[in-house]
């Protein structure tokens, strides 16, 4: 029981990270109907920018943990958002209105490019970061086993919830959010009503990349090591989460992320660690086959 409780805590933390990445997929898919294949790599870039900012702050003498965390978060979000902007501008915008596979292929190219860009510029080795936040609480103590939650895990869960709340507000209450939803429903009509569609799509990528940066920073803090390849698997899993939750649905993305995180953690804990990716990918297949619109998704009716 206690063991399961501990896995629940770990799974929730991991699920929050997946959920944050999944939001980026789901928004982009919602608005332009393409899988932003490079999103996982934007997440990886976010982790690297966070790492470099931590090192810079450390060298600059800013060691107070709360200040450092907030600063790094802000820096990582800004720079990664710029990546989101650049990726959209270079690889996707020229292909708007082209045939369906073209943006997907150029997205795959972008993903390969970003991975190798980081590999070439920062080296292929894993990058460790000393734990920034230490300590934790014991939730439940038994003779042989104790259930604990670290401060880091609390920070991850809380930050994700706050970011989500802010983000939901942006999408539901601001003019930008309204423009995004309008473009999602009907781009041509939105254009006729005076919405700058290009700008809205660009901002969607920027927001998605900023969320990926948050996820990247959390990943770095939680695991303590990153390399240039983390984006691929995390990206596919986050996409699975987005599909599981119903693509296009924001709460669905987070719900899907949590489920994938929990499934993966429990699978590793009770069955086998080697096959945890297989578990996550099988969920993707099963969802798509039996429930193509996901948990919270709308049913698409295909018109002729």
């Amino acid at each position, binding site marked *: 029981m206690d063991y399961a409780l501990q896995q629940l805590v770990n799974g929730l933390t991991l699920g929050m990270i997946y959920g944050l990445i999944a939001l980026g997929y789901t928004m982009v898919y919602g608005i332009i109907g393409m899988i932003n294949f490079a999103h996982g790599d934007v997440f990886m870039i976010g982790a690297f*920018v966070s790492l*470099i900012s931590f090192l810079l702050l450390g060298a600059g003498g800013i060691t107070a943990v709360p200040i450092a965390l907030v600063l790094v978060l802000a820096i990582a979000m800004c720079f990664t958002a710029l990546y989101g902007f650049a990726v959209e501008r270079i*690889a996707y915008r*020229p292909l708007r209105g082209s*045939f369906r596979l073209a943006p997907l292929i150029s997205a795959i190219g972008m993903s390969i490019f970003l991975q190798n860009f980081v590999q070439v510029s920062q080296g292929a080795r894993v990058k460790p970061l000393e734990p920034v936040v230490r300590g934790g609480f014991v939730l439940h103590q038994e003779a042989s086993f104790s259930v604990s939650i670290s401060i880091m895990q609390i920070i991850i869960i809380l930050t994700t919830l706050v970011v989500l709340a802010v983000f939901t507000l942006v999408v539901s209450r601001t003019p930008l959010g309204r423009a995004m939803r309008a473009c999602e429903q009907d781009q041509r009509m939105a254009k006729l009503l005076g919405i700058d569609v290009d700008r809205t799509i660009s901002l969607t990528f920027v927001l998605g990349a900023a969320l990926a940066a948050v996820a990247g920073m959390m990943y770095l803090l939680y695991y303590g090591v990153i390399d240039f390849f983390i984006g691929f698997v995390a990206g596919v899993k986050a996409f699975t989460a987005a599909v599981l939750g119903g693509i296009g649905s924001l709460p669905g993305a987070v719900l899907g992320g949590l489920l994938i995180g929990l499934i993966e953690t429990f699978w590793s804990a009770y069955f086998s660690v080697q096959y945890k990716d297989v578990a996550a990918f099988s969920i993707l297949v099963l969802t798509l*086959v039996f429930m193509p619109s996901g948990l919270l998704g709308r049913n698409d009716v295909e018109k002729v």
Partner: protein
Amino acid sequence: MTEAIRKPPANPYVALLKDAGLAALVALGVGAPLLGMQTVPGGRGLALIPRPGLLLATVAAVFVGRFLLGLLFANRRSAARREAEAPPRIGPSPMARIGKLVAPGLLAFSVLMPVIPGIGRYEIDLGTLVLTYVMLGWGLNIVVGLAGLLDLGYVAFYAVGAYGYAIMAKFFDLSFWAALPLTGLFAATWGIILGFPVLRLRGDYLAIVTLAFGEIIRVVLLNWTTLTGGPNGMSGVPRPTFFGLPFSMAGGEGTFAGFFGLEPSALHRVTFLYYLILALALLTNFVTIRLRRHPVGRAWEALREDEIASRALGLSVVAVKLTAFATGAMFGGFAGAFFATRQGFISPESFTFIESALILAIVVLGGMGSQLGVAIAATLMIGGFEVFRGLEEFRMLVFGLAMVAIMVWRPRGLVSGREPSVSLGKRGTIGSEHVAEGKG
């Protein structure tokens, strides 16, 4: 504000400079953390080394590059818009007309290549590699180009073929020639097993599920140590024989060299492998061309053009998709068996997602559905890789960038637009947007 209302700037160069300046600014922001700083192992954890020179050089390069691009293409609209505005082309495209001459030439060249004087072992090896990818491209072309199903996990079937042959040879002592048809069958079976549950998915979903399948197969190969050797792979895969005559440097009675009374030479095996893959690739091409005139092939193309209409006309969508998937998988399996026997060693590392992406890039760059285009694209791509061999690390960087650039430059690939396999009355060219659409 729309584009039309905005006033054109007085001086185009000022606008260009402004544009280039903005691009440079973005490059500065994008490059600042990752190019401007380098993380190196330091005393405790990591240390940072600033690299301002590299950063500034990159920013300058972006500025100049953007400015020059702007100068060169000032009046060119984006490829997507050009396509939408261009009048529908009548008759075969220029590329297709040239293709009529190029294809036999290429074929003659590839048949004669090993006997051309001055061609050594290196060139033949490179030719073999190129032909392997040509074959894989043609195999995937059946799935992506003809049936319009986007498969991002094609390498799974390549892996199934390679491991299938290695296991058959190691545990059941089958020769290459006995195992070859079985690997094709084996891979096709896997194609059906994987395809069955997912083929009713829409395009992008199908793509991501096939990617997941590719990864699942790789993870299983990596962890099923007793059968596949896990990360260490399988070594000692038997080399092919010339219909029972082994290639041996020792010469003697029962060997290839001995039987034909030749001086034993390492070139024999290499040349034999070259012709073997050439034959396999041509078989793939031949089957594809013939199938296109067969009801099955027409059903594939009908499905690609409009799934709902084909269903309304009574096609069994699942059966049609499965045959395409299985046929593509079978050729992938053949190529895999060839790969295993050529290398003599296989490991899961050879079957990563990058490999799938490379094959898909070949198909798309070649102009989906065009056999000649795939062959040219494979030659360019693998040849390009070979040229950049010295720059090991930068190779994939350039590859990724090239994929983006080619898509932006020619979204439909090199040979876009091809003659329809069947048409009523006057022959015309299918608009390439139809070739690639694959809705449903």
